[in-house]
């Protein structure tokens, strides 16, 4: 079986793309690559376009290697990936909306992010043809983009038979802000701020991924202390979000007691983050070259105290969840994602790991300082709401341990490196709480961002929500959806 390095030899290697290689290939090699992805030999990590080229990021899971293949398409047309590998479908529709690239053979030519409202001259709402579902007694339920709760905008179209969902179709793009167009031509500092505002709950993960991609492009290694501080922030972010989700899933199963207690844990983490780093979400603290500021005095003791407190409180909540039969009745066996589907979609985070896909970017591709830290990557294969909850529980426990290890091993020294002004390309994969965030950047000779692409883990998780909900009752949709907790803004960009 060919490795990614063999594939790179089939194209012309692009100089200055780090740390993974990138090669420009011809249509035959492009199609060969797509075939290997469709066979499951490689995993599709991302697909994005620019004016006259399309790029695919690939992962060889066994070898833990990544690579990028590019296809020039001066006429704006290229052979569709999605016609053989469905997980590329929405990515190709998005690249078509944003760059006018036409995938030949794309099975679904409807726009995705473009709702026909971007041009001032074209304010009329465009009709969108939802996929048909026909049969006796079927009816549709339309939900969103404004939801009943305090959540992000998106549209869900349910076709139901009685109470049972026979088809869910999502429509997104409502949160599309044109982040990538704002990044083009921006200085690195401004682009880093934008990256940190792609998905609010993952602001650390995005800033981390962007900074690593930019540093790879410039050939800069941040100081060791900066790397450890970044990991500390990343684990605090993971803890806060996992606690929040742990409670929120219960709330959607009408068990607000756990929601209230889990929200207290989340708030304690956010307050600790604020005290240590001066912002509850630690926004704008990670910058290309290092971190913007060091921990406040006394942070180490305070964070040790926080973890000790969490270790005392969290197990009680876990036990209550585990022993409440009425709650288990809602979560066990609900919203199942079968392992082959998670593998095909390359689903990351707790979605993939609850369905037997052991991928964690901290481990499989790896980046400092995680190579110096001990942690388990929990994996289950039941793929239901309960399994996604348990992965979060286990990961929260791992993150508590990681915070302690990081505090103990924190090296001294500077917290930022100077950045040279030179051209280059870089790619990075960082494990956010939701899964792997991919950042790809091309820096021009003027030191500004020429093109940057940020791929949220939700791109490969949202389609699985559609699959998981099928055959469940409508009333279980909020529970299923919350167990995924995909990002709207991160997906819509």
């Amino acid at each position: 079986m060919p490795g990614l390095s063999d594939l790179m030899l089939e194209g012309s290697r692009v100089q200055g793309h780090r740390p993974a290689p990138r090669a420009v290939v011809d249509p035959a090699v492009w199609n060969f690559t797509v075939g290997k992805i469709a066979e499951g030999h490689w995993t599709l990590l991302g697909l994005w376009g620019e004016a006259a080229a399309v790029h695919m990021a690939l992962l060889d899971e066994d070898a833990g290697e990544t690579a990028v293949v590019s296809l020039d398409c001066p006429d704006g047309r290229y052979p569709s990936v999605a016609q053989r590998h469905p997980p590329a479908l929405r990515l190709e529709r998005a690249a078509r909306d944003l760059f006018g690239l036409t995938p030949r053979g794309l099975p679904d030519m409807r726009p995705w992010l473009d709702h026909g409202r971007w041009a001032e001259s074209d304010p009329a709402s465009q009709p969108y043809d939802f996929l048909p579902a026909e049969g006796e007694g079927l009816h549709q339920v339309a939900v969103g983009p404004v939801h009943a709760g305090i959540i992000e905008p998106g549209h869900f179209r349910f076709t139901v038979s009685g109470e049972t969902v026979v088809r869910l179709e999502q429509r997104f793009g409502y949160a599309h802000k044109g982040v990538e167009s704002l990044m083009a031509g921006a200085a690195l500092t401004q682009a880093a701020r934008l990256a940190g505002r792609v998905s609010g709950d993952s602001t650390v993960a995005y800033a981390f991924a962007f900074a690593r991609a930019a540093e790879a492009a410039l050939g800069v290694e941040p100081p060791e202390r900066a790397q450890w501080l970044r990991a500390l922030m990343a684990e605090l972010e993971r803890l806060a979000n996992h606690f929040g989700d742990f409670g929120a899933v219960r709330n959607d199963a009408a068990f607000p007691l756990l929601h209230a207690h889990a929200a207290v844990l989340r708030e304690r983490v956010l307050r600790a983050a604020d005290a240590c780093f001066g912002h509850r979400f630690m926004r704008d603290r990670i910058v290309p070259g290092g971190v913007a500021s060091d921990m406040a005095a006394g942070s180490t003791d305070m964070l040790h105290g926080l973890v000790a407190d969490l270790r005392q409180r969290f197990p009680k909540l876990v036990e209550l969840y585990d022993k409440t039969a009425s709650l288990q009745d809602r979560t066990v066996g609900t919203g199942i994602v079968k392992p082959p589907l998670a593998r095909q979609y390359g689903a990351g985070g707790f979605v993939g790991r609850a369905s037997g896909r052991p991928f964690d970017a901290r481990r499989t591709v790896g980046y400092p300082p995680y190579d110096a830290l001990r942690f388990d990557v929990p994996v289950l294969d039941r793929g239901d709401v309960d399994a996604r909850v348990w992965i979060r529980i286990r990961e929260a426990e791992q993150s508590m341990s990681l915070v302690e290890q990081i505090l103990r091993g924190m090296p001294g020294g500077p917290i930022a490196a100077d950045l040279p002004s030179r051209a280059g390309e870089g790619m990075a994969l960082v494990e956010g709480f939701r899964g792997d965030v991919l950042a790809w950047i091309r820096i021009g000779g003027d030191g500004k961002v020429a093109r940057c692409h940020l791929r949220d883990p939700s791109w490969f998780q949202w389609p699985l929500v559609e699959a998981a909900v099928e055959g469940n009752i409508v009333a279980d949709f909020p529970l299923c959806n919350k167990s995924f907790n995909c990002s709207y803004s991160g997906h819509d960009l």
Partner: protein
Amino acid sequence: MRKLLLEGLLRRPLTEPAPETEDAALAALAAALERAARRRLGRSLSIREVDAGSCNGCELEIHALNNAFYDVERFGIRFVASPRHADVLLVTGPVTKNMREALARTYNAMPNPKWVVAAGDCALDGGCFAGSYAVVGGVSQVVPVDLHIPGCPPSPTALLKGLLALLESVGSARTHPSTGSG
């Protein structure tokens, strides 16, 4: 579960003022907010929240208003599922072009009198998303805004302060266009 519930009854609530200055300020704010809410709205203010394309950071902090530390419901302020039930429209995000119509329709579905609060830096003028082809650039471009709460995102304390400011102004805002026909 009994143990957790029992502990909840016996333990001092988290919302009690703590010695730290920030928590003391929060308690003072809470008391002021409660007085204002009672006086002006008879202990009832219903908020409909709309995310008009935010990064979700503001939503996380709005959620936090409901946790045990801030417990916004003790003031009679609650978040409602329908604009038909709402006094206040709380809007976040730079307002994407894809959300403009949904925001306007939500506003139009609310009964008078009604107020609009824009939360977050990008809700003011688009923030760092200003100038994008996909962004309208601020809530006031679409619906009349009574109050803006800055921050990226505004902390729960800042949101509470903002709601207090709104409650203080409600009594004197009879000339506001959105309240005039109510």
